């Protein structure tokens, strides 16, 4: 049915120049990173954050203890 209604039948061919423009002067496709790599990067990022938080907490605890120690020694 639709074939009866094909009104614009003329097709122009793809010229060699256009082929060259599209195929030879294109930047190469940037491949998508695999999912496992994205997940691993995410895990490393979270681990680093957790480690940094723990480090800061420990530092603070250390200060607290040393202050108490000093306080006791004054007494």
């Amino acid at each position, binding site marked *: 049915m639709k074939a009866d209604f094909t009104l614009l039948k003329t097709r122009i061919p793809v010229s060699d120049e256009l082929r060259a423009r599209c195929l030879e002067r294109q930047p190469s496709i940037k491949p*998508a990173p695999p999912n496992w790599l994205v997940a691993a990067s995410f895990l490393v990022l979270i681990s680093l954050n957790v480690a940094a938080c723990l480090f800061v907490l420990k530092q603070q605890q250390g200060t607290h203890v040393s202050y108490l120690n000093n306080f006791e020694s004054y007494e």
Partner: protein
Amino acid sequence: MPNIELLRLGSEREFKKLFEFQAPRILNTALYLLGNRQDAEDVTQEVFKSIVVGVAGFKAESSIQTWVYRITLNKCNEFLRTKNRKKRKGVMLSLFDSQPIITEETPELVHILKEAEWQIWQQIQCLPEKQRIAMTLFAMDDLSYQEIADVMKVSVSAIESLLFRARTQLKKYKPHES
């Protein structure tokens, strides 16, 4: 048809396959939408640039052909808008404006098309925007109703309605032309 997974991974061979399959369709769609071979070739190149940039993020929710047609439509519209900005006084308007896209420049199509096709193409340009786009895609016989609906992001029934109205309109023009 190219393998989408390999295409996503950057396979040049698959990109060439995609080019061989899609380039004639893109070129001719752009030609009928823009009315000029040089512009159509420029848009085709732009479409392939967009494919290179965007294929890694292509989710395959629609077919690759639909995705490529959608890019083509957007690029044609972008092209006409840029051309309009440069040439405010021209008659050429956006693909998505409610006016004909044509043209104070003589479209090159007059030399390319057969007389009957040229007449029909001119009549199609007088249709409202959505009818014009749907009719152009349909009249080229490249896409089904479903595919046109996907490309234009409307329902199949909307396409049926657009094409029905377009055909009614075209039938009205015929007696005046002949």
